[in-house]
């Protein structure tokens, strides 16, 4: 069993470029997911069926079907539906964005609903408007509840970007595959790929753990 690590240096730039794409997809998807997730959460809380039921359907659909299918679907079906062509990066980012929005929607909802009702009452007593109540009382407290699971979700998002390789996006996994095929050295290359994923994702894991400890609300 001979390992040849010298090849690795030669291909490192490609792997790093792939890692860059991974981060880019994660960033775009996270942005979409955060905005959409908030909308979904508010829709579900609103108490109006016409808002909460479609939100519920959306969330259940995206949470129960494999992201792999969603990504391929976005690449092949959505362009037909919207009449606008999507390249691999766009399809993957959009699919993952919509997917993670479903998870964040539930997390945000739990966060908002987790803020004690008495807080709302106190705000009302103090004569705060609905908007002000949300801005200054509820959302800051909801943030404490939301940040740890949301950060974990971003970790999952980053891992899910590997699936974009199925539609040829040149992110880390795909680049790794191409290189290992070309060099016939899957061990060295795939190990390097795993380590790179670890390096970019671990800080997020640490942040999640850190937040969990600092924001821990006693009794929860």
């Amino acid at each position, binding site marked *: 069993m001979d390992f040849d690590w010298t090849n690795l240096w030669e291909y490192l730039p490609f792997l790093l470029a792939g890692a860059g794409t991974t981060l880019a997809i994660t960033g775009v998807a996270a942005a979409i997911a955060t905005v959409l997730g908030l909308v979904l959460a508010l829709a579900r809380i609103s108490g109006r069926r016409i808002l909460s039921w479609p939100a519920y359907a959306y969330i259940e659909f995206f949470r129960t*079907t494999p992201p792999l299918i969603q990504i391929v679907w976005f690449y092949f079906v959505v362009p037909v539906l919207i009449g606008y062509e999507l390249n691999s990066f766009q399809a993957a980012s959009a699919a993952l964005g919509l997917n993670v929005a479903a998870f964040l929607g539930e997390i945000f909802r739990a966060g908002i609903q987790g803020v004690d009702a008495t807080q709302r009452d106190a705000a009302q007593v103090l004569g705060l408007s609905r908007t002000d109540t949300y801005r200054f009382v509820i959302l800051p407290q909801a943030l404490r509840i939301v940040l740890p699971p949301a950060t974990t979700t971003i970790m999952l998002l980053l*891992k899910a970007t*590997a699936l974009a390789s199925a539609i040829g996006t040149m992110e880390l*996994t795909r680049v790794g595959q191409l290189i290992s095929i070309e060099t016939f050295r899957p061990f060295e290359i795939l190990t390097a790929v*795993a380590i790179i994923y*670890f390096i970019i994702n671990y800080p*997020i894991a640490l942040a999640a753990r850190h937040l969990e400890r600092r924001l821990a609300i006693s009794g929860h």
Partner: protein
Amino acid sequence: MEIETVLPDLPFLLMGIPLTLAITAGAFLLGTVSALPMAVIRIAQVPIVTAVVVAWIEFFRTTPPLIHIIWAYYVLPVMFGLRLSALTVVILALAANTSAQMAEIFRAGIQAVPQGQREAGMVLGLSAWQRLWDIVLPQAIRLIMAPSANATVSLLKDSSLAALIAVPELMNRGQILSTQNFRPLEVLTLVAILYFVLTYPLALLAGALERRSRVAFRGL
């Protein structure tokens, strides 16, 4: 897209479901069984062993399951001369991933049991083992059930990755079918619906467990 054209082929797709379930069940059992000792070791802070366990958990939590599968598939035969079937490889890879997630879930559940319970056990003269088994774990179970159900849903979706190493489960059969009838859009939609049917009951269960666990801890 005319979905009625692929409905006659539904049986072919359905034949992949047993494998999908087998992968999910196998990985879950193996992962969960190994997760409990890992969680205990982590909490107990055993020198060196804990560090190894933590490294294992952090590594598998931050890297994509797809990479685990590809790595195991290509590298294990070369490294250990282990000629494992694709199915075994998938189950092992996903089990490793699951073990890391479940270890964290167990840890959070165990640590959430109020310290007072352990102290009461000490006062009663129970050994550490007895305290764990008879006092802490039964109470931790309630907190563990909901995240475990969610982890199982994730696992079921991740089983679709087995398609990429030619295990004839649901996703792979979808690939085969779509290349034979040239209708990937319809087949993909059908496969998505099937995954939904498989995971939705679990998702409902997870939701119900979540509500129950919130109620359970209200008194403490």
